């Protein structure tokens, strides 16, 4: 029977703290970059003009139909060959995860905007608003409310995806656990600790999406 010994993990709490900081940093970068670029792509997917529609569609299809890990590794090992500068693990992982999240959130934005009643557009145009004004003042505020549960789910996915950055040795929680496990020979405790940390962080967020979904279903 295995003797659980978390002392070796607690002794290395500062190593985990550095990892947690790394996880939070890449999460914040990808959340902001992914969801805002996703809006741009989503508007492109919604556009009736081919110059916007086709590139946006190609982008969404490509990034949704390839694995994130392949994208991260491509940005880390392949892209620098085309570039005159080297790419840090943080930059490569952020690029992969952000672009992937942009592709997925673009479809959420598009569906949200499409779900708004045609009459809202007509009303806004009748008041003399331009397309962009109508979008910003009338359509998006209503659509965003409907998209909140789906976007929160995306945020949770981004948080989980951040562990993939460890594959290219970016210092985050899982990478630090690997380090601790190899130094102290305690993979059981180290990886269990990481799993528990993620669960504790994300479980409240998941419960929040359930509440949001229920509230939305009630309101509509």
């Amino acid at each position, binding site marked *: 029977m*295995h003797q659980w010994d978390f002392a070796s993990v607690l002794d290395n709490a500062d190593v985990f703290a550095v990892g947690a900081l790394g996880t939070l940093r890449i999460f914040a970068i990808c959340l902001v970059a992914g969801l805002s670029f996703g809006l741009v792509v989503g508007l492109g997917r919604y556009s009736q003009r081919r110059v916007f529609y086709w590139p946006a569609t190609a982008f969404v*299809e*490509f990034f949704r*139909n*390839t*694995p*994130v*890990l*392949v*994208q991260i*590794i*491509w940005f880390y*090992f*392949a*892209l620098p*060959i*085309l570039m005159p500068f080297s790419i840090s693990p943080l930059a490569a992982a952020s690029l992969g995860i952000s672009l992937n999240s942009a592709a997925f959130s673009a479809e959420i934005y598009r569906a949200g905007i499409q779900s708004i009643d045609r009459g809202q557009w007509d009303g806004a145009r009748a008041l003399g608003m331009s397309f962009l004004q109508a979008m910003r003042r009338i359509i998006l505020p209503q659509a965003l409310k409907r998209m909140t549960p789906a976007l929160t789910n995306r945020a*949770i996915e981004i*948080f*989980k*995806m*951040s*562990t*993939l950055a*460890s*594959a290219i040795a970016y210092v985050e929680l*899982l990478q630090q*656990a*690997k380090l601790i*496990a190899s130094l102290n020979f305690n*993979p*059981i405790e180290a*990886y*269990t600790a*990481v*799993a528990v940390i*993620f*669960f504790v962080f*994300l*479980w409240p967020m*998941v419960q929040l999406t359930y509440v949001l979904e229920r509230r939305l279903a009630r309101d509509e």
Partner: protein
Amino acid sequence: MAYQWDFTPVFANSELLAQGLLNTLKVTGASLACGLVLGLGFALMRLSRHRLASWPAGFVIEVFRTTPPLVQLFWFFFALPLIAGIEMTPLLAAIVTFSIQSAAFFAEVFRAGIVSVERGQWDGARAIGMTNGQALRRIVLPQAIKRMIPAFMERAIELMKTTTLVATIAYADLLFAANEIAQKTFRPLETFTVAALIYFVVITAISLLARQLERRLAVSGESTVH
């Protein structure tokens, strides 16, 4: 100076890539089969009125949905063999992890599908003397499964993309094969581009098939779950 693209070293190793793709499909197929069966089990347990069944199932589902799959894989590969005192190969660890992980997601699909079947269908089945199990198998599941197919296909595609994680524990899937070729030929740009394209083609083909299936279901008026 512009970079000179040269795909010949990659094509010279196409056999390795083909073997990698085969291994990717193997992990995906095995995890999908186990995940579906396990997922139905979890869903039935979670829907059960007995807390002894519904709480453990709920706990497993929540844990596997809210922790990163890569952490789960590392746990099953590095930690479990020490606790259980068993030998773990990368393939076995991958199948165990992705089966349970996708089962947790499939369970929610099954549950939503079963709940979506009208209460009256249960009552009717009971009224003609069926037991709970019979009503589930003969009346409710056949109707529910048809509605769940779009969600299933989406999860299956997600699963295939998730299997790339096994490359990190040195199982020779497509990504791992690409990595090996890139190191051997010093052509990472061409190799990883080809690997990404292979994934893109295979996954796009599967999702087009899924869309076709959904359209057919929509015609027969059964596609209520989007």
